[in-house]
């Protein structure tokens, strides 16, 4: 009889009120291998992992590790038994130091007291081994999202786990950092660690993983060696239909100049420096750059959320002050924020609330809000954007990421903006929903709106943008024209520009 696999999960069933999240799902992980777990959002990947990690209790099914039954009642027990997990949401205590976050729950002690010295030393050891350049004493909330993600990965590694679950570890990493992560993963694989890798990024999956398990609607669909799969094949298995084209056809045509930005500089660091560009009606302007290149800061300065130091913004030839978001909204600007969960949605409010909150002025008659008009607009947007929801009274929290993003996009569309600033509009959204968001962006441009879109996914910038502005260390490194985007060397050009001022 063959040696049992490192981890086997069979016939896993988990029901939530009204939903079957796992429907006889299965997963077999071999020692010293990377196993990709794929599926659209809501396919049950995270639920399956949460059952393993002791956050959820499965209703049916068996979990064995090295052939022995493994049933953990809490994350602590899972961690003690060599199962570590990097969660998709960065669960960190932002006001505490990096090292405290890493050793939380198992502080190194001396004479019963927590030893800061030992903690620092241990942290340095882990960081050195993984080549991570972060000061362990600094408050974690002051790090960039990608640094925080690397810290989270280092934390999981530091448990010396036999099984390591990485849930969307690269969602906010740059290309370079992804390479770094892969080096770490390879090192762990050589040590015999079994790694479960959840991601939406096909290219990464095909490069790093040994096997791929695909799930759909809580069910197991297929497990294949990665070498036998192609991107299209994976997508077909995931969505259950062909999706040969990842981007909708571009139908928008840039027209006359809508906005002109001159020497825009933020006041408080980190800030963008001396950025000048113009945006046309019906144009989609991409903003590329490495993490830390202050693309978000550029959008925030445009929108007035961050203080403007110097520079001028002209809209249709007239300068606008945009001193705060209210003023910017009145001037016809709208902004979709990067961290949807933190700064976008009101989780325990209805779709209607979330959809109309930025546009209350329009529903106010003599100081009273018209519920009927709000409902009418919400229904219209839900319909036109194909938001999948049981109704407008549903809490937005219970929608999938893609549908949440549609609602927020809808919120801004209701204010009828001229300029839309989109910060990572497709982050953490599954392939099918991404396509719909792209289509929506292109439709908006078609209606003559100007769109500035920040993204870390180069393929989507290349796929739907008319021009791409590249930021490097807070400054503008260059703008790629439509012809340059069409050329073969586009990726190389962007990378070169992105490193220009570093």
């Amino acid at each position, binding site marked *: 009889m063959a040696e049992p696999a490192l981890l086997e999960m069979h016939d896993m069933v988990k029901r939530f009120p009204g939903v079957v999240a796992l429907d006889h799902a299965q997963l077999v992980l071999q020692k010293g291998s990377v196993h990709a777990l794929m599926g659209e959002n809501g396919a049950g990947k995270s639920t399956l992992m949460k059952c393993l*990690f002791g*956050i959820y209790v499965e209703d049916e099914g068996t979990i064995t590790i090295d052939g022995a039954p493994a049933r953990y009642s*809490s*994350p*602590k027990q899972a*961690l*003690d038994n060599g199962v570590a*997990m990097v*969660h998709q*949401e960065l*669960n*960190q*205590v*932002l*006001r*505490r130091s990096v090292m*405290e*976050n890493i050793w*939380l*729950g*198992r*502080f190194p*002690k001396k004479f*019963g*007291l*927590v030893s*800061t010295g030992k903690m620092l030393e241990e942290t340095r050891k882990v960081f050195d081994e993984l080549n991570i350049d972060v000061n362990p004493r600094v408050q974690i909330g002051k790090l960039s999202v990608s640094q925080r993600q690397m810290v989270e990965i280092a*934390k999981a590694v530091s448990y010396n786990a036999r099984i390591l679950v990485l849930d969307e570890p690269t969602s906010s990493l740059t290309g370079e950092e992804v390479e770094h992560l892969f080096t770490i993963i390879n090192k762990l694989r050589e040590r015999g660690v079994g790694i479960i890798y959840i991601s939406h990024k096909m290219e990464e999956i095909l490069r790093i993983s040994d096997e791929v398990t695909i799930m759909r609607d809580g069910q197991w669909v297929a497990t294949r060696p990665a070498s036998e799969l192609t991107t299209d094949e994976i997508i077909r298995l995931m969505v259950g239909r062909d999706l040969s084209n990842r981007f909708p056809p571009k139908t928008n045509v840039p027209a006359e100049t809508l906005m002109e930005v001159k020497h825009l500089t*933020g*006041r*408080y660091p980190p800030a963008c420096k001396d950025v000048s560009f113009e945006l046309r009606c019906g144009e989609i302007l991409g903003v590329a750059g490495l993490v830390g290149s202050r693309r978000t800061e550029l959008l*925030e300065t445009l929108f007035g*959320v*961050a*203080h403007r130091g110097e520079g001028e913004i002209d809209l249709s030839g007239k300068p606008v002050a945009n001193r705060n978001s209210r003023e910017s909204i009145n001037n016809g600007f709208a902004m979709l924020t990067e961290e949807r969960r933190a700064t976008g949605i009101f989780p325990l409010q209805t779709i209607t609330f979330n959809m109309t909150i930025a546009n209350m002025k329009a529903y106010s008659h003599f100081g009273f809000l018209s519920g009927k008009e709000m409902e009418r607009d919400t229904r219209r947007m839900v319909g036109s954007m194909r938001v999948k929801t049981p109704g407008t009274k549903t809490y937005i929290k219970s929608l999938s990421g893609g549908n949440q993003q549609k609602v927020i996009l809808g919120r801004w569309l209701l204010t009828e903006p001229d300029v839309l600033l989109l910060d990572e509009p497709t982050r953490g959204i599954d392939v099918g929903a991404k396509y719909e968001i792209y289509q929506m962006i292109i439709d908006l441009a078609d209606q003559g709106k100007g769109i500035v879109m920040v993204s870390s996914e180069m393929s989507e910038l290349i796929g739907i943008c008319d021009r791409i502005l590249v930021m490097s260390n807070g400054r503008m490194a260059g703008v790629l024209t439509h012809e340059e985007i069409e050329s073969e060397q586009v990726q190389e050009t962007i990378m070169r520009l992105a490193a220009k001022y570093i």
Partner: protein
Amino acid sequence: MEASTASKRFTSDKVREFFLTYALYIILGVMIVVVVCINPKFLYITNIMKILQQASTRGILALGVAGMIVLAGTDLSVGRIVGASAAVTASLVQSTSYASRMWPDLPQLPLIVPLLASIAVAMFFCCINGFGVAFLKLHAFIVSLGTQLIAYGVTCIYISSQAGGAQAISTFDQNFINLVNGGVQITGDVGIPAFNNITIPYLIFYFAIAAVAMWFVWNKTALGKNMFAIGGNTEAAAVSGVSVKKNIMGVYIVAGVLYGVASFLEAGRIQSVNTQTGLNYDLDAISGCVIGGVSFSGGVGTIPGVVIGVILLQVINYSLSFLGVNPYLQYIIKGLIIILAVSIDVRKYLAKK
């Protein structure tokens, strides 16, 4: 040209940062200077000692409440718990020569007995709070609102059970009074009459010991670190393997010990305990913490901050009475200073964009 404006901005930011970092100390300093200008006697060492002495019991309470605020909760029951514990303490330390004693047959107990009894009572109520927060998943505001009533009821029943009805419990054993109200005498002549023969009240030492002990708990024990983690991001703590319930209970039990000690001392300080003893101490303790930079959103706070906050509050109280400010005006001034202090302090954490 550009460089010079940039550097100017740089220095003005530095100044701003300096003011924000030391805002509490600056406010404290300004207040003292103002009071001294009006009445220079304020600088007498006896006044300073009195302020610290008055701050002591409240300070110990604030050290306990601070933990709950760091957990993103609060405690509205402090005052009534103090009432209950102080009543128990008082009934056990009454002088044997006093005729209307609550327990006429009780011999003079060693002082450790009332201290432990006081701690036990406070811990009991804190455990109710902790249980409600950790296991019943209630907000600390709600649980402590309930506990507050329970503690008050218990205090009333206990105090009314005296032969003479709801009388204040008073007339304590002299040893007890000395232990609380005594002090270390430093005799000597430094040439300035106001600074000769200083007495440092024991209460100040008790407060200092409590503060140092709590500094260790907060910074050097897993309980302290976990407390910050739970307050800052409960989910992160849970997935990192921290036992949230156990640690919450731990924080409440530590608070119970502090409350018990503070009630014991408070009974000795005011030397007469009735049903109203402790009323509104919760507000004093919470304002002390908040002034000292313990954030209501949880996960933020330092022991030195709490200590300074409590002292600042007491300086306000003391100096207003000291200067003989109209009592109605005192309330208004106190309110304004608290709002001012906290609003400057929170600026520290507001990231500028």
